[in-house]
């Protein structure tokens, strides 16, 4: 069943179209920056963007920061929202269940399929943006580095560590200013990719849950996105600080901590933890609903 779901995923035009869109955004941004040499000043704009003029190899990190807030969650919500509701509305759900495919199995296969989609998207963005960075923005120009700092405005501010105005040194530089070897950079990019993929699982689980409630794939996707928007609003609201540690988007930006020296693990671990909770809770809810539901579509 998992193989079947993956086959369906890779044979959908939508899959590749949405991934292509996600890869296109960083490309467009890179072209503008390369042409104008106007990167956002340190502390403003998307993470890492201020540093990429100095070092094109950092561009994958900047690209991930570009797609993370909107493109990626939208794509994940659409794919996950379609998972059960889409099958229901095309009528294939009843044939899958009568085949028979166990309802629990189907849910798990769908989650795996959505995770694979997220991973594919993250890998595609990383690889294409690395190529973009090196080809368009050029490789590391250590000599030209003056004060290429990394944006601190989007980094979690409560971790007690300095987050802004860090100096870019020779070669590839961590957020904390210490140089990184290429191997370290690769490790950290991989870590960030894994973290971002996991960060999307909470959205995916919410969308899959909503997908079992309705036959409208669009409704499920929009419902999941509404949850995320609400979460983003509350994350920035001081009055909501009580609930902030439990919001699905609270630790989304913790992947930036992979680029500190040494890696700052606390928020990364919490990010993994909160996503695990969301996956367990919403998959359980999805299962409880789906397994007992009459399939009348």
């Amino acid at each position, binding site marked *: 069943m998992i193989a079947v779901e993956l*086959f369906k995923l890779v044979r959908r035009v939508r899959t590749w179209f949405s991934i292509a869109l996600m890869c296109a955004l960083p490309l467009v941004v890179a072209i503008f920056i390369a042409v104008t040499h106007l990167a956002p000043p340190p502390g403003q704009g998307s993470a890492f963007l201020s540093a990429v003029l100095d070092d094109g190899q950092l561009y994958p990190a900047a690209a991930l920061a570009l797609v993370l807030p909107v493109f990626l969650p939208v794509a994940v919500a659409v794919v996950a929202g379609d998972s059960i509701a889409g099958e229901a509305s095309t*009528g294939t759900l*009843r*044939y899958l269940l009568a085949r*028979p*495919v166990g309802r629990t199995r189907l849910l798990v296969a769908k989650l795996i399929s959505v995770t694979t989609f997220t991973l594919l998207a993250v890998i595609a963005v990383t690889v294409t943006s690395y190529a973009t960075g090196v080809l368009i923005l050029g490789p590391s120009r250590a000599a030209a580095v003056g004060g290429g700092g990394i944006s601190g405005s989007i980094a979690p501010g409560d971790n007690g560590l300095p987050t802004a105005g860090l100096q870019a040194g020779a070669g590839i530089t961590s957020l904390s200013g210490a140089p990184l070897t290429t191997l370290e950079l690769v490790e950290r990019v991989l870590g960030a990719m894994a973290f971002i993929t996991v960060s999307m699982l909470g959205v995916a689980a919410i969308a899959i849950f909503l997908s079992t409630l309705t036959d409208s794939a669009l409704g499920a996707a929009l419902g999941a996105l509404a949850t995320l928007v609400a979460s983003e609003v509350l994350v920035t609201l001081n009055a909501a600080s009580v609930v902030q540690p439990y919001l699905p988007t609270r630790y989304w930006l913790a992947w930036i901590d992979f680029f500190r020296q040494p890696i700052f693990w606390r928020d990364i671990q919490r990010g993994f933890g909160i996503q695990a909770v969301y996956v367990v809770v919403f998959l359980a809810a999805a299962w409880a609903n789906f397994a007992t539901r*009459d*399939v009348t579509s």
Partner: protein
Amino acid sequence: MITTRDLTKRFGNVEAVREVSLDVREGDRYGLLGPNGSGKSTLVRMLLGLVYATSGEISVLGHRIPRQASRALPEIGALIEEPAAYPHLSGRANLRLLDAAGPHGARRTRRRRVDDALEQVGLAGIDRRPVRAYSLGMRQRLGLAAALVRRPRLLILDEPTNGLDPRGIRDIRDLLVGLNDEGVTVFLSSHLLPEVSALCTRIGVLDSGMLVLQDQLASLQQPTGRVLISTDDPERAVATLDGLVEHRDGADLVVRSPDPAELNARLVGAGVPVRSLVVQRRSLEEIVLDVTGTGSDQFGVPASEPGGTVKAEPPPSAGGAPARPADAALPASADAGPPASEDREIS
């Protein structure tokens, strides 16, 4: 093969299926009939474990549904209302995908089984077009092929000839009869009486969720004891069959007699030219309309009043109007009942 006991399904306040106890035996070609909204589809979905019963029991192929559905379903081929497929994939890819999704679909034999099923439904030469480019009839055939891929022991088909042209309908009927001869039990639901009359050996009739009739079609269609005669010389025929003629409409007579051969001999003996002589049987339409009310898509007639506006007239008076769409529209099928050949024209 299929037994239900006091099967009931309520959706909110609506009782879609009410205490249905039906049984389908091995080798049956069972037709489930009933007006729109009478609960046929809900019943079919309950048999397949898609809809959970409110109360009552279901056993299919000896397994309890829904608890043991995973054991029964691999041996069942199903068409559940309309066929459905992934529109961007070809028909073949769809069948392979569905086969790969569940148990009892050996990868080794998949290609051959899929090709066989496509051939059975007349889609052997299908190209790589995506299903979204298929016509309604092709989709229907593909849906039937999907039901046949694993060579099931039991077919549960909801409206199997929906969207097919007359030739398609006959193809599918022949296919189902052929499969039945090989031992496949066929359970189909339909509101198309001619289809059921030509294909099924046993029928059940649902009305407002209740099983109001279940019997062998042949025993439901026993001769009524009347013979329909058409002759060029009705006056002399009436005189010859003095007292037996119940009704006359031009050249057509309704005659009370249990023995059509004797009747024929008397007429021929008296020199009456007999154009046709038919043993009157109740048509399936009369049988079904007799026991059902109006469908849920009709309003303005009290649903509690069985028959409603379309109630069939009782046989004696109906005899005067021998036009019966249910029978007339179809060639006699040798399987419609044991004495089937006898009730056709023997002029």
